[in-house]
């Protein structure tokens, strides 16, 4: 079997991979915290988050803190599975070339 086939295309993007890495270890995290951690602009981060949401890898929760909107994100079961699968694929490729 072609080992590259196991790599998830969605995670070719460094930013999406970064978002998933953060969500794996943090239960729920706000848009602003994500932006700060990844050092991105609003628009850039938003478009990647949309892609991840459309694929069912992350969940969006819209809420309010006072009058300000506070959007938070968390990883879904299928997102977790996809991310772990991607990691395993990466590890296997490193092992197989040794």
């Amino acid at each position, binding site marked *: 079997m072609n080992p590259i086939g196991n790599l998830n295309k969605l995670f070719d993007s460094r930013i999406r991979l970064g978002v998933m890495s953060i969500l794996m270890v943090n239960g729920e995290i706000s848009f602003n915290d994500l932006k700060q951690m990844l050092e991105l602009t609003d628009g850039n981060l938003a478009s990647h988050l949309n892609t991840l949401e459309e694929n069912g890898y992350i969940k969006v929760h819209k809420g309010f803190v006072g009058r300000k909107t506070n959007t938070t994100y968390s990883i879904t079961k299928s997102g977790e599975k996809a991310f772990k699968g991607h*990691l395993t694929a990466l590890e296997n490729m490193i092992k197989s070339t040794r």
Partner: protein
Amino acid sequence: MNEQQHLETLSDIKRIMERSSRFISLSGLSGVWAGLTGLAGAAVAFTQMSDYYIAWDTRGSYSDADYAALRYNLITLGAIVLAVAVAGGYYFTRRRARRNNVPIWDATSRKVLVNFGIPLVAGGCFILGLMFNNFVTLIAPSCLVFYGLALVNASKYTLSDIRYLGLAEIALGILNIFFLRRGLYFWTLGFGVLHIVYGLVMWWKYERPAKEQ
């Protein structure tokens, strides 16, 4: 993509996970500063207490006014020591965060503060209750135990080594329960010596090589 790139990706993932879930800018020098402040505070407390007992001996009897004054002085001293220790600790940690180019106030530092704060505030209320009921000998061991629990709790969100400092503080506090009225020595050891040792070890382990670069 080749092997090297895959390795880089994996280590990036690891670094992002680490950085997004733990506050790693906590400086060892903050610990050293807190320890030195603690030692200085203990020295002042020691003279105040020995003055109190000398006055007692020369008078030959206990004095309510003297006791109230000592109590007031020690509480004031404690508050000053705490403020100086926290202010200096904040300074060194902010300096380190700036050097690493990471914000001092972010999701991870908030988590550290909240998780450190819960056992600490609980302990603070408990100790106020002890003072209210005049169980003064239990104050020192309770401070050490609750402070240790707070450190252990916070260690999940910052340098994991801080867990060992927490365990050592808990152990000292429990030992103190069996040597009541020796609270000041245990305090000096727990808040002074342990902080300095921990701070130096942390500085040596994480900050020293970064300085050379």
